[in-house]
C-alpha cells in the first residue's frame, strides 16, 4: 500500500484542480450545444463576472479525481475498525441494482403509477424494518441518523403536547451518549440531564431513579451502549422511565450487534432510529449520504414523519400530512434518501431472515476475539469483566502516562501498518480510548494482522517512542497542523494562491 501511495506524492501531480486549469480549455462533448438566442432576462439580474470553475479536459478531471481517490483508506482497500461506525463490506450488487436507469430517472413528483416498482421496494423495506426492530410502524424519510434522532425526539414532544402534558422539559442522556443525542434534544427544545455510567459499563440505576420525575420527557439510550456492552437491566430502566411518564428513545447506532437476536421494541423502547449506512451496509461515501428511518411503538404511531408508503391492496401510494394529520411533518423536500434506502432494501433481501442474526453473531465473535487477543498481549480493557458486543474499548491511559505515547499516536502508527485507526477519544469518559469494531465481514487472518500490528506498536512505544509519536510516515501526508488550519483559515481556493 505504502509504495503506490508514495509514488503519487512524489510525481508532482498533487495540486488542487484549479492549478491544472487553463483558460479556454473545455469539454464540449459533455455540455449542450451552443444555442442561438440570448436570455430573455433583464440585464440587472444577469451575472457580470464568470465564476472561477476549473477549465480542464475530461481526462485531466478523471485522472485528478482517480488520484484523489487513491489517497483514501476505504473498506474496499483497508481494514477499517472504526468503532460505532460499522464499516462493513458494501456489496456491489446493492449499488448496481439501485442504479438501474428505471430507478435513477424516476422524478420524485411523478405520479405513483409510474414508480410502482420503486414504491414496492420502499414498502417492503418499511415492513422488514418493523419486524427486525419489533416496532409498530416505520417511516423511511429521515436522511441520516441525526435526522432520525431529531424525528424521534420531535415525536416524543408531539406525544406529550397532544396529551397537554407540557411540564415535561427534560431529556435524560447517559454521559457516554453520542454527541448528537444532547444536540438533538436541544433542537427539540429540551434541556439535557446527564446521568453517569458505572464502572461495569451499565447505567447507574440509582442516578436514573433520582433523575426521573414529572419533568422527564424521555431518555435517549444506545443498547448495546456506546461503551460496547449490553445494558443488562434494560427492562428495569424502561419501567422506571415509563412509570415516571417518560418515553424511551433508542439510538440505533449499535443495532448491528443484536440484529435478529433481540429487538428494541421488546426491550420497551417507544421510538428507534436506524443508521442504514451501518447495519444495512449502505455506503458511507466519505461521510454520507446516510439514511435514518424511524420506528415507533403504538403510542407514537400518529406522529411519524411523512411521507410514508401506503398500500391499498392494489397500488402503493404516498401518505402525507393529509392522511396523517398528527405527523410531525416533512423532513426533506421529497421522500428522503431513496437511493440509499434502495441499497439497504437490496442488502436486506440478499441476507434474508436467516442472514440477519448471522450479522450479529459474527460481528460479536470478531469483536470478542480481538478483545481477548489484545488482552493476552497486555492491552488494558475499559470493561474487562464484560463481554464485548460488536465493539469494545481498549484504554491506552497506561501507555500515555508511562511512555508518553497516546491513543492518537497509536492511531497514527496503525495507519503506517495499513489499518485504519479505531475510533479514538470516544466515548469521552474513557481516557485515551480506542473503540474497536471489526464487523462480521472481516476474516480471521485480517483480525490477526491487526492484533499483531497493535502488539508491534506497543513494542515500538516501549523502545522508540519518538518514532511512534512522529507517525504516520508512509501516507500521502504526515500529521497535519490543525491549529494552523483553524487559525489561518483557508477553506476556499483563491486564484492569488500559488
Amino acid at each position, binding site marked *: 500500500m505504502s509504495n503506490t501511495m508514495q509514488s503519487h506524492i512524489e510525481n508532482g501531480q498533487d495540486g488542487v484542480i484549479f492549478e491544472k486549469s487553463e483558460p479556454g480549455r473545455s469539454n464540449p462533448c459533455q455540455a449542450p450545444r451552443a444555442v442561438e438566442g440570448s436570455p430573455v432576462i433583464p440585464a440587472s439580474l444577469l451575472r457580470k463576472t464568470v465564476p472561477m470553475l476549473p477549465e480542464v479536459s475530461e481526462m485531466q478531471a478523471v485522472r485528478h479525481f482517480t488520484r484523489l481517490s487513491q489517497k483514501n483508506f476505504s473498506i474496499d482497500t483497508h481494514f477499517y475498525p472504526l468503532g460505532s461506525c460499522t464499516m462493513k463490506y458494501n456489496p456491489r450488487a446493492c449499488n448496481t441494482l439501485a442504479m438501474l436507469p428505471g430507478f435513477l430517472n424516476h422524478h420524485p413528483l411523478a405520479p405513483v403509477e409510474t414508480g410502482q416498482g420503486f414504491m414496492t421496494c420502499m414498502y417492503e423495506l418499511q415492513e422488514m424494518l418493523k419486524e*427486525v426492530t419489533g416496532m409498530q410502524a416505520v417511516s423511511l424519510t429521515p436522511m441520516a441518523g441525526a435526522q432520525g434522532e431529531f424525528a424521534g425526539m420531535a415525536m416524543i414532544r408531539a406525544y406529550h403536547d397532544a396529551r397537554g402534558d407540557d411540564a415535561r422539559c427534560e431529556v435524560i442522556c447517559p454521559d457516554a451518549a453520542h454527541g448528537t443525542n444532547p444536540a438533538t434534544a436541544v433542537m427539540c427544545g429540551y434541556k439535557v440531564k446527564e446521568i453517569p455510567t458505572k464502572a461495569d459499563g451499565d447505567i447507574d440505576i440509582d442516578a436514573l431513579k433520582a433523575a426521573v420525575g414529572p419533568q422527564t420527557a424521555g431518555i435517549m439510550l444506545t443498547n448495546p451502549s456506546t461503551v460496547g456492552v449490553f445494558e443488562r437491566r434494560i427492562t428495569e430502566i424502561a419501567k422506571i422511565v415509563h412509570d415516571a411518564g417518560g418515553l424511551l428513545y433508542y439510538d440505533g447506532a449499535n443495532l448491528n450487534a443484536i440484529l435478529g437476536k433481540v429487538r428494541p421494541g421488546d426491550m420497551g423502547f417507544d421510538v428507534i432510529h436506524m443508521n442504514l449506512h451501518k447495519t444495512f451496509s449502505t455506503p458511507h461515501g466519505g461521510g454520507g449520504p446516510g439514511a435514518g428511518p424511524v420506528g415507533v411503538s403504538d403510542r407514537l404511531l400518529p406522529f411519524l414523519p411523512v411521507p410514508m408508503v401506503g398500500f391499498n391492496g392494489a397500488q402503493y401510494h404516498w401518505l402525507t400530512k393529509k392522511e396523517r394529520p398528527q405527523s410531525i411533518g416533512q423532513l426533506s423536500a421529497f421522500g428522503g434518501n431513496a437511493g440509499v434506502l434502495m441499497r439497504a432494501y437490496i442488502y436486506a433481501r*440478499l441476507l434474508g431472515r436467516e442472514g440477519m442474526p448471522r450479522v450479529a453473531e459474527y460481528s460479536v465473535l470478531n469483536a470478542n476475539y480481538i478483545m481477548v487477543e489484545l488482552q493476552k498481549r497486555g492491552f488494558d480493557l475499559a470493561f474487562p469483566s464484560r463481554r464485548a458486543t460488536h465493539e469494545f474499548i481498549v484504554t491506552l491511559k497506561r501507555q500515555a502516562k508511562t511512555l508518553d505515547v497516546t491513543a492518537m499516536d497509536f492511531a497514527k502508527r496503525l495507519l503506517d501498518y495499513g489499518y485504519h485507526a479505531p475510533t479514538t477519544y470516544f466515548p469521552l469518559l474513557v481516557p485515551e480510548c480506542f473503540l474497536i469494531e471489526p464487523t462480521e465481514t472481516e476474516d480471521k487472518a485480517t483480525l490477526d494482522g491487526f492484533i499483531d500490528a497493535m502488539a508491534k506498536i506497543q513494542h515500538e512505544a516501549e523502545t522508540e517512542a519518538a518514532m511512534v509519536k512522529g507517525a504516520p510516515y508512509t501516507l500521502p501526508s504526515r500529521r497535519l497542523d490543525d491549529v494552523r488550519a483553524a487559525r489561518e483559515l483557508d477553506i476556499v481556493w483563491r486564484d492569488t494562491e500559488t
Partner: protein
Amino acid sequence: MPFIPHTETDVKQMLASIGASDIDALFDEIPVELRIGILDQVPAGLNEMEMSRLMHARAAGAQPLCFIGAGAYEHHIPAAIWEIVTRGEFYSAYTPYQAEASQGTLQLIYEYQSMMAHLTAMEASNASLYDGASGLAEAVLMAVRANRKSKSKRILMPATVNPSYRRVVQTIVENQGITLELIDYQHDAGCIDLASLPVEPGDVAALVIPQPNFFGVLEEVSGLTDWAHARGMLVVAVVNPTSLALLTPPGEWGEQGADIVCGEGQPLGVPLAGGGPYFGFMCCNLNHVRQMPGRIVGRTVDADGKPGFALTLQAREQHIRRSKATSNICTNQGLVVAAATLYMTLLGAEGLARVATTSHLNTQQLSEQLTTIEGVEIAFASPNFHEFVIKLSGVTSDAVLDALLAEGVLGGFNLSADYPALGEALLVCATETKTTADISAYRDALSRVMQTLKGGAA
C-alpha cells in the same frame, strides 16, 4: 454465508481463544426473555441472480418524457461522474476522521467548497447538508444565531419559496420558538412586491429570498436585499446552482450581498432517483463562518511543511459541543458532493452557462408553444429561468396530467393544492435535455388533451 468469510476452523479457533463453547455463549449477558426466534416477516434470502432479476423487473416500464421540475431537475449527467464517484475508495470510505488516510476525500471537499463559494460569490462554504429543504431550515437557524442585533426569532418567508421547503423548515424550527411569517406574492407577476412590504416590519432576524422562485420567476433580489439590510435583517438566499451561471450571484445582490446562501445541489450531476440522495449547499461570508453548521475542510500543512487538508472549526460540531452545537448534523452528503464537484469540473463555467442558457431558452420556446393552445395561458408576465406556470381553463389540472401521462408525457407539477388562488395551474419545466421535437410532442399532446377534455365536458 453471505458476506461472512469465516470457515468452521476459524470459528473453532476463535471460540477456543475466547474460551466460549459456542457463538451463542457470547450473548449470555442479554436477558433470555428478550431473545427472539425467527423473523417471520422477513423473506428468506435471495442470491444475487435472483435479486437482480427481481430488481430489473421492478425498474422496468416506459419512461415518460419529463417536464416536471419543482425542485428536482433532469439534466444530462456526464458518464465519467458516477464511474469515478462509485470507485470503492470514495464509495466505501467514511468521514475523514484520520486526515492522513483521507486526503482524497478532504481535498475533494476543499475543491467543492471553493467551487460553491465562487459560484455564489461568497467567502465560505461548508461540506454540504442533507438537501435543499433541510438546508434552508439550517440556514434559518443559523440566521437567528448570527443576527446579534436582532432579539426576535421572526423570519419573513415569502409564499414564492417552494411550499415543500416551507413545510420542512416549519417541522425543524418550530420547537425552538422560531416563527415564520408568510409574505404574499403579486398575483399577476408571480413574485414578491417590494412596494407592498411594510416600511417598519419591527425586529425580524432574517428575510428569505428565493431565486428563481418556486414559479420559476425571477425576484427583484437586489431591492429586496437592501430593504432587509436597512431594517437589520440578514438575507438568506435560496438559489438554483445551475441558474448562477447566468444570474447575479447572491454575494452581489444589492449593496452588501446576501448573508447566507443555500439551495438544492441536485441539478449538479445528481440523478433524480425518486427524490434522493441529493445535497444541500450552504455558503456565507467569513464573519458568520463560526455560526455555520456542517463540516468544513481547511487547507494547512503537514509535519514536513507540505500542503494538506484537514477538517477545521470542529469545535462548532456536536461531537465536541454536544448540547451547544450549531446543529445536530454530523455527516455531509459526501458521495453526492463528489458527483457535484466532478460535474462542475467537467462543465466548467462555460459548460454550466450553456446548460443554464439552453434550459432557459427551451423553456421560453415551450411556453410560447403551449400558449398557442386554447384554454392555456401564461400565469405571470415576468422574466423566468427554466420553469413557468400555465393556467388551464375548462379542465382540471389532475385530468390534464392523467391524460398527458397516457400520451407518455409528465406534464408538470399541479399547483392547485399549494396555491388555490391560481385555480387550475401547472408548473412546467424544460431543461437542456429537451429537444425541439420533445417540445413539439408536449404541445401536440396537450393540444389533443385539451380538445378531448373540453369536448368531453361540453
